[in-house]
Each structure stands twice: as structure tokens, then as C-alpha cells.
């Protein structure tokens, strides 16, 4: 199994800072913006971004977690069903600008399911997508991210492994893994 480092702690820091600046450029005071992290792994990225954003704009920004398991299109088509996680959105998204956050954008199917799951909470004014890693050339649906940490050329057979301190790892590291 070959492992290639895509992002290390220092680079990840710089990348997250850049993403925050881009968000501030487009959302200004964040008065009408909410951040929603995708379960199970996007929530860690969302927490890091959210913490940094609150420090930069010096105000509270609503943060929620969204689980799209029940809206997936591969239910009953997988050998082992995906396990559901907690959804926690304790604010209204009606008329708000939503920034959806996930760790890796791969086929785009999770994001499709997420948008379905999200609109059961209301009709947002605008939805944007932020991902840490954008895997190019692997999309199965017309989904694109508005904010990208790093775009990587990958094959469908490869896997992107995100290790974050928040998940209990020693250092923030993102790997590209060849399954052979």
C-alpha cells in the first residue's frame, strides 16, 4: 500500500486560513450565513473553519451538523448499509446563506443527498459548498465546490485519508492512498 502526503499540518493551516478569508470576502459580516458540517467526517473540518471564522469576524456564527444517510441513493444497493449519525441544526436555515462543509468531494452523491436532507429544514437563500480536498475527474453527478482547499488528481481506485487532531490523530495530515 503506497501512501503519499497531500497536506501536512503547516500547509493545512495556511489552506484553512485562505478558505476563511475567501468566505469573509463573500459573506462580509456573516449576519445571514450559517455553517453546516457533513456527518461523519466533515464536521471536524467545519469545526476548525467555524472556530477560525468566529475569531476573525468576532461574532457568533451558527454551526450545525447534517447527516444525509436516510437520503442516500445507494440504500439497499450496498452490502453493508451506512450507519446514521446525529443531525443537529438548532437554528433556522430559511432564507439564510448556507455553507456546507465536507472533507473530501468524490462522486458528488453525498452532496446531492445532503442538499435533499438540508431542505427538509427549510429553504435557504443560497447554498455553497466548501471542501478540503476536491478529487478531480471522479464526479458522477454535476456537483462542484465553491471553496476548495486543494484539488487533487486521483483515480477512482485511490482513497483520500484525512487525519485530523480533532479526530484523535497526533498531527493534521492528509494522504492519498493507492489500493493495490
Amino acid at each position, binding site marked *: 500500500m503506497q501512501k503519499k502526503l497531500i497536506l501536512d499540518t503547516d500547509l493545512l493551516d495556511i489552506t484553512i486560513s485562505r478558505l476563511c478569508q475567501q468566505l469573509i470576502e463573500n459573506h462580509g459580516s456573516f449576519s445571514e450565513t450559517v455553517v453546516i458540517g457533513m456527518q461523519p467526517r466533515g464536521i471536524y473540518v467545519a469545526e476548525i473553519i467555524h472556530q477560525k471564522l468566529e475569531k476573525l469576524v468576532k461574532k457568533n456564527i451558527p454551526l450545525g451538523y447534517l*447527516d444525509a*444517510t*436516510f*437520503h442516500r441513493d445507494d*440504500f*439497499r*444497493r*450496498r*452490502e*453493508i*448499509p*451506512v*450507519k*446514521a*449519525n*446525529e*443531525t443537529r441544526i438548532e437554528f433556522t436555515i430559511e432564507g439564510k446563506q448556507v455553507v456546507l462543509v465536507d472533507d473530501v468531494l468524490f462522486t458528488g452523491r453525498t452532496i446531492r443527498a445532503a442538499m*435533499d*436532507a438540508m*431542505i*427538509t*429544514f*427549510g429553504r435557504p437563500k443560497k447554498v455553497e459548498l466548501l471542501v478540503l480536498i476536491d478529487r478531480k475527474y471522479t464526479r458522477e453527478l454535476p456537483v462542484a465546490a465553491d471553496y476548495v482547499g486543494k484539488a487533487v488528481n486521483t483515480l477512482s481506485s485511490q482513497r483520500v485519508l484525512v487525519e485530523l487532531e480533532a479526530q484523535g490523530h497526533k498531527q493534521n495530515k492528509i494522504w492519498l492512498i493507492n489500493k493495490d
Partner: protein
Amino acid sequence: MSKLSQKHLLGIKNITREDLELIFETAENFKGVLNRPVKKVPSLRDITIANVFFENSTRTRLSFELAQKRLSADVINFSASNSSVKKGETLLDTVNNILAMKVDMIVMRHASPGAPHFLAKHINANIVNAGDGTHEHPTQALLDAFSIREKLGSLAGKKVAIIGDILHSRVALSNIFALQKLGAKVMVCGPPTLLPKFISQLGVEVELDVRKALLWCDVANVLRIQLERQQIKYFPSLREYSLYYGINKKLLDSLKKPILIMHPGPINRGVELSSDAADSAHSIILDQVENGVAIRMAVLYLLAGANA
């Protein structure tokens, strides 16, 4: 694991503790769904479910139907009273005719113990037992255990007394299996004529005095006196039953301790439970009903997933 060990939910006796935990975790997430503005998910949109009820039911049937609709399944309802069963059609023929219309899942209530087990051997569809005679009522036990878990955190080491007509109760048997698998201690309490003879072999304590049972337990699950199943007299009169085994607010207050009161419904108010006890702060009866939909969603969802 995110998959059940079983293809059917026939009873609590043959499912594992891991299955129970998985159902509870999934039900928690569905409870979240039920509190959203849009209380519906598309998971079972390609599934058709038949609710086949050979015995009367309000709560269970409505709860199943609502759970199915919240999961976007197609639902057909069948009740024996206005069907060809009256013309002498057998159970297997009836169900096979329903399945010929491309139905994926059967939710069945039947007066004969073991009817869903019989069906499971002969047909190729997921079966959910919604009560078979005096045998099991698994989804009721699941929602009871889920409701206790929600209020007390965990079942391990908790004491639960099941009070009333144990002899005719499928709820009692399923509850005993579920609670024991989750590590709770179980006591049954009722008049000797309404306690099965060898019940203590299931590892439950037996108590004849309702006050002692209430003093012992953290949770009292009060069962209905099943007037329709009492062909012979098991006790002299309802008035006498209510005098010796009825639970009222005065009795609960005299215990001077926190206690949860549950009832699977329908309540015979003034018989096993007085109105002031059923509507008191101890009572979690309406929480049970609310949780029933989430639990049934979880069961149907997981069984459909196990099929893939």
C-alpha cells in the same frame, strides 16, 4: 456493524443485544427526523409494505402506518374482519396473494402464537411481528426499552416491574426478553391466577403485593387487564382487582421516591391505573407512543437494508 442479524423481526427472544443497540441508535436519529419541519425521508420509496391485521389494533397499526409513510414506503392495509378470510381462505393463501402484488414486507398481527414464524418459513418477504396471540409483541418491547433508556440513560442494573395480567400478555414476554438482554432486573407482579406457572424459570422475580413491587422498582410497566381474553374468571370483579392491584396517585406519592409509570395502552382507566396516576408527572405513556413511530421506522429501515 450497521446491519441486523435477522431478516425478520419475529420476536425479541431470537435477536441479539447488538441488534437492540443498533435499533435504538437508528431510532434516535429517526426521532430527530420526526422533529423536523419536513418529517419524511425517502429511504423506502421503492418498498411496498402490507399491514395485515387479523386482530384489532389502533395504536400499533397507526404507528406502523405512520412510520411507513414517514419512510416514503407504499402502504396497503388489510384487516381480516372485512376480507376473504371470512370466506375461509387460509393464512398462507391470503399472504401469498398479497405478495403476488409485489409486496416486499409484511407487518402482521395474528391471534395465534407463532403465526409470523410459520409465515417466515414459507414466504420470501421480510416479516415484522406486530403481536402474535399471547406470545410476543417485539416492537412494543423495543419502544418500552427505548423510552426507559431515554429517561434513565441506560437499562443496565435498572429494576423494572411488570404489573398486571402477565398470563395473557405478549407485551410482558417480549419486555422480559428485551430488558434482560439489556442488563435490567425484571419482576412480574399480579394476582396468582394471572401469573404463568413457570414464569420464574425465565429468571424474573415474582411478587404478589403491588406495593412491594413498586417499592422495589425504578420503572413500573402496568399492563391492561385483557377483558377479551378472560373466558373464565381469573378474579372476582374488576372492582376487587382495582382495589388490590390498581395504581393511583396516592399510592405513588406514598412511595416517596422517583418512579416511572408506563402502559402499552389502551388503558382501562380506573382499573389497573387511575386517571390521576396515568396523567401524573410519573407517567411516560405518551412518550412511549411518540417513540413507537421512531422505533418502527428504525425496524423497517434496518430490515429493508438487511435485504440488499
